[in-house]
């Protein structure tokens, strides 16, 4: 048992580290360190511009999507090398947030289902960040039950005509392309009538409306489709095979091993370390110590759980199911941490302005953003179902709509 790299891993790490040392946008390093959930602010710069510039620089040197094949803009790195890259990129990795969905989910789906010409055309600019992609899955009527989606695609000559509405689309407002799952046959059971496409977000009839979130920011969007035409050549997978295609996408979402999930703990510990309560250090307070200790072992538990998965990758094995706990643990933890940090501030914890609030209001921003972490990318409840069914082997839930034609499934609860 050890934490050492193999000689090849050490060589890769040294190469990655040297390149990052020479090229990373260090002028933003301290701002990025201070960034936490709900607040990333760079002095005198637009985060989007800085992120795109960093991504392009990496792409020119072959570091943008190291684990992708060379012909699509990567360097053919192994899974463990990908993890090492992420470790070395460290705080600058926060700049890749806007590319995660495109590169992590749309890219692999294109790789699996697009034609060779399409892959060579679309993937390199996706990797380099010159083109940003979004994923158009969730709908008002299909969140956790994503297969309940209602956006229609109807064949018309060589095109498909799309009508409907998506919601919770991250980054749609700055995206160039998207992958879109639609219903092509409402007369068959819900999983069987779906078809996947990719499209140009500038197509006529696509309207993106930012959602004003509960925390006042707008990271997500509603996307409306009115008679949008997509050529059949942009279909991904067979007609009616959209559900299987979407599973490829979602599988990739869960492969984010080694990416640090934010727990809020390092921020809270730093805060308590410099805080005084009634004239004595907060870290001398029994109640504070107890709370911190419980969160500390969750944070370290997650860290060493990812080390176990990384060790499996290092041996060329598939990681076990242990990594499935990450978002479930971190999501609710960061919310509790934020609430506790405000509690420690007493009545002044209510203040959220960077000028008035402690540590520039980072915990207030975290508090207001954190409810979403327990919902986005799979709710806590869906994640528990996944652990129970796929890891522990418990039977699936009874699905009353499974064999019913989609157009006969009730759409209202109480009339």
């Amino acid at each position, binding site marked *: *048992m*050890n*934490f*050492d*790299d193999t000689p090849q*891993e050490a060589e890769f790490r040294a190469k990655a580290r040297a390149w990052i040392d020479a090229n990373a946008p260090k002028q933003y390093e301290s701002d990025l360190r201070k960034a936490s959930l709900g607040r990333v602010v760079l002095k005198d710069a637009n985060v989007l511009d800085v992120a795109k510039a960093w991504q392009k620089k990496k792409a020119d040197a072959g570091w943008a999507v190291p684990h992708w094949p060379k012909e699509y803009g990567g360097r053919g790195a192994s899974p463990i090398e990908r993890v090492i890259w992420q470790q070395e990129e460290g705080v600058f990795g926060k700049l890749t947030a806007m590319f995660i969905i495109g590169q992590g989910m749309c890219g692999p789906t294109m790789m699996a289902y697009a034609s060779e010409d399409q892959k060579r055309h679309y993937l390199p600019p996706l990797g380099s960040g010159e083109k940003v992609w979004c994923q158009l899955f969730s709908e008002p009527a299909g969140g956790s039950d994503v297969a309940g989606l209602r956006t229609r695609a109807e064949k018309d000559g060589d095109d498909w005509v799309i009508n409907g509405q998506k919601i919770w689309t991250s980054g749609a407002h700055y995206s160039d392309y998207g992958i879109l799952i639609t219903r092509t046959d409402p007369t068959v059971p819900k999983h069987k009538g779906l078809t996947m496409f990719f499209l140009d977000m500038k197509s006529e009839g696509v309207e993106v409306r930012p959602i004003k979130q509960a925390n006042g920011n707008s990271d997500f969007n509603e996307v409306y489709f009115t008679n949008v035409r997509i050529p059949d050549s942009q279909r991904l997978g067979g007609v009616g095979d959209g559900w299987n295609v979407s599973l490829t996408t979602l599988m990739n979402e869960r492969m984010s091993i080694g990416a640090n999930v934010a727990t809020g703990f390092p921020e809270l*510990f730093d805060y308590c*370390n410099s805080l005084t309560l009634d004239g004595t250090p907060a*870290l001398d307070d*029994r109640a504070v*110590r*107890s709370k*911190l*200790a*419980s969160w*500390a*072992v*969750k944070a*370290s*538990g*997650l*860290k*060493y*759980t990812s*080390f*176990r998965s*990384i*060790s*499996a990758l*290092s*041996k060329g094995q598939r990681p076990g199911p*242990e990594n499935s*706990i990450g978002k*479930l*643990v971190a999501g609710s933890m960061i919310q509790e941490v934020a609430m506790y940090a405000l509690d420690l501030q007493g009545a002044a914890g209510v203040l959220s302005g960077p000028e008035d609030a402690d540590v520039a209001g980072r915990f207030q921003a975290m508090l207001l953003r954190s409810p979403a972490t327990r919902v986005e990318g799979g709710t806590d*409840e869906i*994640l*528990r*179902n996944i*652990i*129970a*069914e796929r*890891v*522990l*082997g*418990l*039977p*699936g*839930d*009874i699905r009353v709509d499974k064999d019913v034609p989609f157009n006969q499934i009730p759409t209202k609860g109480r009339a």
Partner: protein
Amino acid sequence: MNFDFSDDQKQLRDQARRFLAEKSPPRAVRAVLEGKADYDRELWKGLAEMGFLGVAIPEEFGGTGAGYLELCVIAEELGRALAPVPFASTVYLAAEALLIAGSVEQKQKWLPKISSGEAIGTLALFEGTGNPSPKAIKIAASNGTLSGTKKPVADGAIADFAIVAARTGNSGREADISLFLVDLKAGGVTAKPLQNVDPSRQQAELAFDGAKAEPLGAAGEGWSILSRVLDRAAVLIAFEQVGGADRALEMGRDYALDRIAFGRPIGSFQAIKHILADMYVSATLARSNCYYGAWALSTDAGELAEAAAAARISATQAFQHCAKQNIQVHGGMGFTWEFDCHLYYRRSNALALALGSQSYWEDQLIDRMRQKNAA
């Protein structure tokens, strides 16, 4: 990175699991629980024959000298099987105190007997309610003898010798405390078994009345030796806790698959699934913290104190959580004497308090993190 046990260590785990499945089934645990024996002598002999008692004791003192990672592997299996033997007291506490602070003569006298199963040892630290603290130690040593009472002492009534923490000064500092080795069969000690929440492992009161006591380690070094012993034992007991947590999770999962209510397996209800998923989460966090503790223990790393506290806290939470939720999944049957759920519930709560309760380990963890931060 190779943050995992080796293939040989995994083989050892399989071997220990098979051995314990045969020698320490629930019926053997119940025999001790129900007072038919004070510990399982057959199992103890078997553990000696397998070389498990001396797995971290060097060959020169009769052990196999395999190492601490191997001991962690065995501890996990003992915890999973609820082994009703004085392993923790003898191996994690007494043997470790001897290895850290014993003279060559003391090691030569006792370690081979521990390895062979001939001697049971324990640590006599507590004196009634409260957590480990120099101030809580009242029992005093004078002229090579000890007088006073220690309780609870794990396995105190079946032990052959005890490492006793006693007061040798009154400055109010840690340097007041020294350790002594007392041969419990040499007279001057009365042992009384005490009722406890997990009778599958014994607790006792030891009353010393002029008992002959030889120093273990230098005078005034007692507290620092003790801290090191407790850190090591914390990692090992955490592995027992993880083993117990995993087994409780399995029991709950199996019952949820088999039990039918409302016309379907109860494991198909989300209310049950989510209980079991949360058990998996806490067991997984604990296991990962324990692996870090195992690494620190096996390399005698500077991080041991912090790693041990994290493993200890996390594993205590996980075992208590899994054992209590296992009963919940079982419903009424979980509260019968006949079902094994209560064996795990009892053990989880007893192990939570061995070596001091959560608040003690929380303090240890935060103190270490603070020191690291200041450095």
